């Protein structure tokens, strides 16, 4: 339309508000987790033992690193280093894929052991263990979905950057995608100890 209004701070603030809604979305599952943990601490430890701590730790490192690369990408664009910015975005997307592939192997192993929501095996392991794995699958699943969305978003932003649509003058889109990606990381920062490290 006629007079274009531009408000980068407003755009970022809007993104933060959106991130709040994401936090609340996950918090629903964390509430269920917290209540179940306080009810079945023993069973939760038992369930947690059956998760693969190595894959979990690797994924933690992967996500932390991807968080770094996307943060660096924002600095790069601010300093008008477009090539570096593109590389960093690329690395982030690759790390997102690594995370998902890793998750795929982890889940297939667990499912092949007969552990999945509603399975007979789970039912036999008792109420607390069932609750643990149900929540694990739904929380990690929702998180995985966010990894997928965040990764795609960064891919799109990288293309826009390459096309010159995102510049050192105008990079809110990149910044906001980075914010989203950091949120994905933040969720994992809590998810990891709560599901893998409860002993």
């Amino acid at each position: 339309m006629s007079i274009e209004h531009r408000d980068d701070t407003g755009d970022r603030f809007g993104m933060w508000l959106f991130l709040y809604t994401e936090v609340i979305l996950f918090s629903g599952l964390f509430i269920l987790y917290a209540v179940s943990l306080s009810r079945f601490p023993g069973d939760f430890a038992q369930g947690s033992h059956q998760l693969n701590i190595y894959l979990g730790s690797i994924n933690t490192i992967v996500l932390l690193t991807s968080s770094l690369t996307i943060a660096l990408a924002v600095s790069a664009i601010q300093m008008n280093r477009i090539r570096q910015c593109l590389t960093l975005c690329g690395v982030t997307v690759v790390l997102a894929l690594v995370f998902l592939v890793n998750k795929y192997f982890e889940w297939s192993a667990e499912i092949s052991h007969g552990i999945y929501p509603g399975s007979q095996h789970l039912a036999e392991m008792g109420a607390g263990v069932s609750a643990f794995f149900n929540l694990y699958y739904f929380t990690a699943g929702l998180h995985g979905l966010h990894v997928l969305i965040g990764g795609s978003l960064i891919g799109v932003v990288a293309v826009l950057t390459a096309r010159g649509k995102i510049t050192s003058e105008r990079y809110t889109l990149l910044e906001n995608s980075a914010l989203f990606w950091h949120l994905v990381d933040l969720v994992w920062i809590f998810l990891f100890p709560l599901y893998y490290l409860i002993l």
Partner: protein
Amino acid sequence: MSEHKHEPVPYRTFILIWIALLALTAITIAVSRVHLGPLNVWVALGVATLKSSLVLFFFMHLKQETRLFRLGLLVLLVILAIFIGMTFIDTLYR
């Protein structure tokens, strides 16, 4: 409507934060091997909170943003605490 432009954060800062994050991850895994009873959960949550504040304030530039952003975060955390805490008022005393 004051425009608020950020200074680019130097790469070095981010890398230092990253190293700190990895170190904290190592710590939290290590601590989880020690049996502390219910304390384990609280330690894990404490470390996670520390890690997330690093991400929030540095990676997410919260340090550079105006007061409004921090106020918003505070509101979120208060609400979150209410949601979780008040649910426990029921489940713990049932």
